[in-house]
């Protein structure tokens, strides 16, 4: 990973203004995405993972959301400083986006063909006929059966999985180099989820694009990502290659998460390890490590200063000052069915 990354987020800080005060929903987040790779951002609700994704596209809810600092370098261009016109070229052109709820991402009164076509025409100099043909090709590519028929249908006539495929087709319409997928499978059933994930991976292989996948599901991360960022309370807790993260988690939070998920291999009806307590509210964040109130290993010094990101291994970093002192993590035995 010596070459320049496709996307580099540096020290990103995002705030939401309300009644005169600004709550920092994302605070000092940094990560990189290499070309053709998949980066997962995982965390619980409110940890800032979606805000980070929206910040990359500069799609924060206005007028309350603001980027307070940091850089978002995409193909060498800082999107934080980019003008609206430049952003417009980037969005849907170089970066595609897939949302959680496909139904709300589609216009209910237009056929899916028109919507895909529109996405195409916005960024490519095509005739209408060519765009139409291209739309059919795209729909075929995302695995929609008999696309020449389906193209005339309306979103409500499709199933959730098919809709998500359409959204992906729109995101792909201009051969983006980066696809940002915000919880793309959360609203879908397991079997459909597996299909969509499979589709995204195969498309990535074919088109060579990078993917930023935002999810709360560690299983999804493990299945499809190369690297992952674990976020907690607006900050990066740990990041690294998925193998390292799942087998040698360095942050107590990552460990807690991994332990608390029931797996097929977990003894039935056994007590699950838990993370006690809850995430503090944004305006009640403690000084120092934000995880300290829930951390079984917390000490007085954890409250002194925010822990820096320390390198643990190749591309693996953790934001915990005690990571070296933690007991060894017992990896879960590989799944066997």
């Amino acid at each position: 990973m010596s070459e320049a990354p496709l996307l580099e987020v540096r020290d990103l800080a995002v705030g939401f203004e309300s009644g005169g005060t600004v709550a920092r929903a994302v605070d000092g987040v940094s990560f990189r995405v290499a070309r053709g790779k998949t980066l997962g951002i995982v965390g619980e609700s409110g940890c800032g993972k979606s805000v980070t994704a929206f910040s990359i596209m500069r799609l924060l809810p206005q007028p309350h959301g603001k980027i307070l600092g940091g850089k978002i370098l995409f193909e060498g261009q800082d999107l934080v400083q980019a003008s609206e016109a430049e952003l417009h070229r980037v969005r849907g052109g170089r970066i595609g986006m897939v949302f959680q709820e496909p139904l709300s991402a589609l216009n209910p009164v237009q056929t899916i063909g028109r919507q895909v076509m529109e996405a195409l025409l916005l960024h490519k100099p095509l005739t209408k006929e060519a765009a139409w043909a291209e739309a059919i090709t795209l729909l075929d590519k995302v695995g929609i059966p008999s696309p020449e028929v389906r193209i005339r249908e309306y979103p409500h006539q499709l199933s959730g999985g098919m809709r998500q495929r359409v959204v992906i087709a729109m995101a792909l319409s201009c051969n983006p180099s980066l696809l940002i997928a915000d919880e793309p499978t959360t609203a879908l059933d397991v079997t459909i989820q597996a299909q969509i994930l499979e589709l995204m991976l195969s498309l990535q292989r074919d088109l060579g694009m990078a993917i930023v996948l935002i999810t709360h599901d560690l299983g999804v991360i493990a299945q499809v990502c190369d690297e992952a960022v674990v976020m907690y309370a607006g900050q990066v807790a740990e990041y690294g290659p998925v193998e390292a993260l799942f087998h040698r988690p360095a942050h107590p939070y990552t460990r807690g998460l991994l332990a608390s998920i029931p797996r097929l291999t977990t003894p039935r009806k056994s007590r699950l390890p838990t993370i006690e307590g809850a995430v503090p509210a944004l305006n009640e964040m403690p000084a120092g490590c934000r995880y300290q109130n829930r951390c079984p290993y917390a000490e007085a010094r954890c409250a002194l200063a925010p822990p820096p990101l320390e390198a643990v291994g190749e591309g693996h970093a953790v934001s915990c000052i005690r990571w070296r002192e933690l007991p060894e993590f017992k990896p879960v035995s590989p799944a066997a069915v």
Partner: protein
Amino acid sequence: MRLSPQAQLQLRRFRSLKRGYGSFLILVFLSVLALLAELLVSNRALLVRYQGHFFLPTYGAIHPGRDFGSDYAYEVDYRELKDRFAAEHAGNWVLMPLVPYGPNENCYAGQNFQPRPPDAAHGHYLGTDQINRDILARLLYGFRNSLLFSAGFVVMVYAIGIAIGCAMGYFGGWFDLGMQRIVEIWSLLPFLLVVIIVRAALPAGTSFGLGLLLFVVVAFAWTGMTYFMRSATYREKSRDYVAAAQVLGAGPVRVLFHHILPNILSILVTFLPFTTAAAIGSLTALDYLGFGLPPPMPSWGELLREGTGNLDAPWIVASAFCALSFILILITFIGEAIREAFDPKKFTLYR
């Protein structure tokens, strides 16, 4: 009853919205003034001292002229009485209200009927209308009529709208279907035409007073409320807290009154200012067209009509227009503030 913290929060937020809260205070103040109109603007004296006795004529039965030494059996003219007592120096006196004119009274006895411009010397601060009635008095009493009308309107529309709308939303099925069709047909009836027809159908001698007018207007205004109540109930009914109550064994009455209604209360409160404005608007419109309150009941619509017909006497239309706009603006500000205070979006900034 303790306000729920959400309600307290909403109340606090409403108070913090200066414009809306200020408008609310002004409106309350004006309403109190209007309700006490007789003490401020009236042709009846506040206090009369006559032959050692005190009289409080403001409220209650009329005093015929004979009671105070005049020779007529109809109500005494207190202004005249005041002058007479003052001239007699017999220890009798009369205390008149700030504006010593009634809303229906010809204030220039013996002179031509014609609009007269504002005349502070005579106490006609806003002038008179074309039959010499004090405009300030008519404005104030007209405002009271509007207030009473809208209060009654809101209560009745809410009562009917909530009852029918909630029943439709809660019971659903054929009842809902049937009522929906009825409501649709009912709300298609041309309101003004029906008011005219209803008036004609009433037996002679029935004066079209505030109550009856209210009844007729409400009879055609309740439908709008049912739509909101129906859909709100429908939405709330399908939420899990209702299911939870049902699983606990709660019956429809408990579910409706204990669970659903408190949860749609905020909709009702949000609609309140707009319903009030609608009531004032429709009363004014009906009066303007001459299908509202029977003359000579003071009303803003009537003043507006008279004013627009007498543009050469601009103080009539100006008074009515300013008063109406002012009140409607106040209500709009209040409504805006309530809506903002109740805005659920305020609770969540981002997901």
